[in-house]
């Protein structure tokens, strides 16, 4: 089965299968052509294949005459934060993010720090397909400069964004699991700024993800197992690019990644209300919280680029997705796990409560996440056929912003072909666990027949 996916967000594939250096070089060269040989920031995660892709990307950008500012191993949100401040024309982040070991991607970031929007990404693809590269002669080759000193400014900004004094006073002990990813080397400076006692696990830049790198309860077991023994006030599990985050409470309870955004939204909106932007398959908890503060909710298609673009268009105050991600538009156009951790700690410090109290404060639903695997073209077909079939959506309101969403009074279900893997993702949420399970099972049966 082929695993390469070339789309407007960038290029994703599997090392040793679809993701060859030639593809990466040409794709980077297309991006270098798109930014007309301008300044491009470059960062990567710790995966073994990232070094090869990093070298490939450098060569493609240099051939197009770009001024490459190399951050080396760097979380994607730090790179995104830096793009505008360093007056760069764009950035490339090489990271497998939350995907399984072996996967990797070149993610394209535009000059404002957000993931490239489809229209820009398609222009890059057009250049790539036409092989219409800007290939500079020998004396106009690009330059490469390592960047080592910019993280100080980033953490200055993080500190300024937060009530750092309150956090420092609280003397928190924090357990963090960055899955041996790009975040490892940045945990110590982060903890130092906020006066945290840091207990880091899986914090070696070994290139191996110690567990499935998607931050969610089943991958938070290690943190959960040790947190009470080490006297931790809260635990965090991140994706390998520091774009997503899930929470573990001081008592060892693992919170669904859906509640990361909800808890932060509850905190941020309590200070300043305004439009909240989220995708169309995020927990209804978020709607309830927005409602509590009288904040309008704007729903988008799934994906960081869509949320970020709606935040700008709707002048939103906070954006995020149920996969454990959040952005504050006043800070950057990135889903940023450092900022997320900071805001959660700030919320605990200001309210003088435990992590588990934050979780108790918010309305909770039962969420069931399932998947039906199958070839991509079959996935779309199966979803289409489903629309013609009755009963499974009886009494619900259908919305097709992205995939199919059906809303009932007590819950909803969302079906969507994954953009990153050959499968249909199913999220079913309800106040009743049984009903959420039943709705999901019902749809899975129909989808499997349609495949």
């Amino acid at each position: 089965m082929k695993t390469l996916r070339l789309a407007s967000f960038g290029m994703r594939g599997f090392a040793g299968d679809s993701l060859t250096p030639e593809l990466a070089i040409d794709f980077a060269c297309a991006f270098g052509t798109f930014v007309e040989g301008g300044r491009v920031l470059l960062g990567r995660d710790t995966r073994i294949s990232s070094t090869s892709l990093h070298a490939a990307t450098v060569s493609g950008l240099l051939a197009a005459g770009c001024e490459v500012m190399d951050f080396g191993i760097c979380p994607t949100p730090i790179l995104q934060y830096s793009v505008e401040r360093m007056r760069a024309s764009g950035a490339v982040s090489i990271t497998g993010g939350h995907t399984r070991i072996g996967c990797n991607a070149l993610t394209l970031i535009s000059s404002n720090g957000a993931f490239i929007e489809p229209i820009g990404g398609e222009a890059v693809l057009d250049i790539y397909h036409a092989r219409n590269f800007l290939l500079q002669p020998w004396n106009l080759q690009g330059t490469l400069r390592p960047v080592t000193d910019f993280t100080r400014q980033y953490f200055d900004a993080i500190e300024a964004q937060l009530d750092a004094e309150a956090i420092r006073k609280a003397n928190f002990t924090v357990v963090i699991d960055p899955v041996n990813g790009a975040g490892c080397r940045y945990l110590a400076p982060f903890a130092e700024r906020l006066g945290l006692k840091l207990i880091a696990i899986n914090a070696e830049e070994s290139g191996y993800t110690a567990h499935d790198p998607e931050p969610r309860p089943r991958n938070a077991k290690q943190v959960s197992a040790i947190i009470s023994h080490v006297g931790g006030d809260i635990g965090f599990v991140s994706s390998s690019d520091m774009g997503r985050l899930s929470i573990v409470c001081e008592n060892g309870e693992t919170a669904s990644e859906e509640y990361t955004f909800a808890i932060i939204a509850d905190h941020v909106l309590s200070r300043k209300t305004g439009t909240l932007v989220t995708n169309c398959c995020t927990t209804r908890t978020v709607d309830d919280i927005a409602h509590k503060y009288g904040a309008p909710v704007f729903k988008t298609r799934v994906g960081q680029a869509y949320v970020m673009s709606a935040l700008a268009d709707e002048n939103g105050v906070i954006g995020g997705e149920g996969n454990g991600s959040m952005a504050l538009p006043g800070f950057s156009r990135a889903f940023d796990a450092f900022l997320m951790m900071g805001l959660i700690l700030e919320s605990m410090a200001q309210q003088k409560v435990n992590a588990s109290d934050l979780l108790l404060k918010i309305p909770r639903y039962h969420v069931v996440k399932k998947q039906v695997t199958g070839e991509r073209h079959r996935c779309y077909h199966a979803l289409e056929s489903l629309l013609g079939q009755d009963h499974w959506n009886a009494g619900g309101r259908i919305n097709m912003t992205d995939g199919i969403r059906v809303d009932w009074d007590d819950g909803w279900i969302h079906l969507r072909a994954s953009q990153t893997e050959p499968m249909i993702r199913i999220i079913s949420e309800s106040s009743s666990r049984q009903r959420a399970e039943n709705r999901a099972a019902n749809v899975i049966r129909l989808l499997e027949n349609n495949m």
Partner: protein
Amino acid sequence: MKEFLKVGISGVRGVVGESLTPSIAASFARAFASFVGRGTVVVGRDTRPSGYALQCAIAAGLESSGCKPVLAGIVPTPTLCMLARELGSRGAIAITASHNTSEWNAMKFIGPDGVFLPPNRADELYDIYHQGDFELVTEDDMTPAVILDSPMERHVRKILDYVDVDLIRKRGFSVAVDCCNGVGALSTRKFLEEKLGCKVVACFDAPTGAFERGPEPIPENLGVLCDVVRKFKVDVGFAQDPDGDRLAIVDELGNPIGEDLTVALAVWQVLDRHRKGPVAIHMTTSRAVQRVAEDRGSEVIRTRIGEINVVQAMLENSAVVGGEGNGGVIVPAIHPCRDSYTAMALTLELMASENKTVSELRGLLPKYFMVKDKIRAQGDKIPQTLRALRRRYQDRKINLLDGVYVEMEDAWFHVRASNTEPVIRLSAEATAQTRAVEIARTIRSEIESFLSGAEA
């Protein structure tokens, strides 16, 4: 005329931004990895500005195909050849277009023995490239690149072990060097000053890769070095090419002795003071070299043009010294490849042990005069031109090992297709300068008429 990618005995050569792109480099690196198998591959480059992007592409290609790149950075080609063998690697890739101008670059492939791939092995590699079926490994089998510290150390040590360092140091020679803005800019001064006790003045010693003189170490490109030699009244001038494998010598009066005589001095010194044995040189190397060797009772083996051909002949015949008339000195006991650093050390040692100036040494060499010329020609016109020339001279003593080589009593001339450029190369040598010039002029006009005849 747009230059095409040239894939041949001298590696893969092209114009940066036109025919030679990073993705082509990555593909060749993957073909090389598939060819040599998993293990370490050393990668080095000269100072050309395009070298770094190509190095990145090659590293990416090697890693993705299961090899571990060892990055030696900017190093002389002989250093890289030696590292390939000494580090027990699977091979090495040199990123250098050697004596070509700045807009060119190339990849040259070196085997685990530290020698450029011979033609039949190179053909195998190119077949893999063209078939396109490269090894591609998963993360479990990938090894990230490492950077090699002090890459020249072993190379320098081997040269110092070979020559009489004390003898050279005692003389405290003053030397002018011309590094051609190439790899020598990073190492030649240090080598001569620190290791051989010389006083050094340097020109073209910024490692920019934007060559401020013609990159071949031929007399017409050495005007500045000659001026420096005269102005600073040094004992000798050394001119390197961009990747540090070839050397030309300027005498203490500021006159280039001719790059074909670099080998003559090296042969002299090795046979007199190091080791007796056969000598291998290519066909257009000056007869002066042959005479130097024969006068010392050595057998002389003539080979086809191309470094690898000389190296192979040397290894097969246990030659003790040899090289090419373009300033490429090879001493297999140090390493079987052309090496300007070895050539510098041997020249200084000869000056010390004979206690003579360079002009005096030159005066003791047999007198020959060589004329070199090149005639631009499309590839498809070259064979019939050579065939016509061969018919024209079929009654003479003729050697067809490589192009057409015609031997006369007092002279010879040689005509062949270049391995690196779309040109026909012509050399003629005689005991009198006027005779050499006359032969060259005659042959050139004959070639031109054959070429236009071929066009008709």
